């Protein structure tokens, strides 16, 4: 299916919960309101025309101090979906406020979301509601903070052994 047709189909289903759509060099993106993301993902997976059976990536972006977005929501959680039978892709984004820093978990839809969401929690400190086991994935339990947040000091080191250089 054509990318713009995918976006139109999403908009038809979710209405105002699709906040914005755009296309850049053949990549199509829909920005979804936080309360609609689980419905959007489930629709993408289960609708026969869309058929997005593969969650290729789930990650996040910290827009703190990003030009033009000083007052907007701090984070975006980004979903990259791919359909093996139809060979098409779409990207969904959810804006996340700093204070809430929480999104519905996609583990019930794609088991791979379990580890991807743990990584996002580890690196960005975004919680996922309904996640069965939200622990750090890559860093050690003793680590304090979330290193990919823009306000994590670039020179802060937390070694388990050895000098603090």
């Amino acid at each position, binding site marked *: 299916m054509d990318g713009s047709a995918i976006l139109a189909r999403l908009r038809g289903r979710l209405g105002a919960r699709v906040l914005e759509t755009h296309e850049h060099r053949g990549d199509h993106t829909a920005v979804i309101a936080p309360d609609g993301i689980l419905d959007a993902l489930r629709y993408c997976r289960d609708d026969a025309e869309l058929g997005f059976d593969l969650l290729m990536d789930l990650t996040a972006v910290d827009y703190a101090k990003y030009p033009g977005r000083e007052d907007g929501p701090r984070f975006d959680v980004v979903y990259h979906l791919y359909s093996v039978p139809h060979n098409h892709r779409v990207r969904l984004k959810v804006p996340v406020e700093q204070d809430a820093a929480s999104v519905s978990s996609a583990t019930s839809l794609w088991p791979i979301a379990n580890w991807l969401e743990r990584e996002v929690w580890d690196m960005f400190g975004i919680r996922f509601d309904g996640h069965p086991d939200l622990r750090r994935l890559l860093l*050690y339990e003793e680590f304090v903070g979330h290193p990919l947040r823009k306000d994590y000091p670039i020179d802060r080191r*937390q*070694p388990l*052994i*050895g000098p603090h*250089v």
Partner: protein
Amino acid sequence: MGVGTFFTSKLDEALGWARKFSIFQYPFVTACCGMEYMATACSHYDIDRFGAGLPRFSPRQADVLFVVGTISHKMAPVLRRIYDQMCEPKWVVAFGVCTCTGGFYNNYATVQGIDTIIPVDVYIPGCPPRPESVIDGLMKLQDKIAAGAQRY
């Protein structure tokens, strides 16, 4: 030696000579340098010529620790324990810039040189080092072993 000839040596030198040609390495491989380590260890470059052809995958049976690849802070206690488990005399080779200094990883995750955790005898820089550098480093280690330079 024919009949009636003899040679003298010191026990230390004889031991050093024997040890330098019976290097049992423990390859602690964590990253891409491992591919270059494998290339060096296989038949084309043939480190068996230097008596180092038999890696032991148990630190208790090894006497040279090859640290091959980036060491993260999460991995550092593991590396330290592996080192502590090795019997003496023992030597350590830092293979690649990441183990020497952290390389280009100066971030929250990476140890800035394994010599902040364990003592190192030979540094082999490179990203990754070519097999020729590795063999050069191995020969420098042999010189060190033959000279009896070991830590107890």
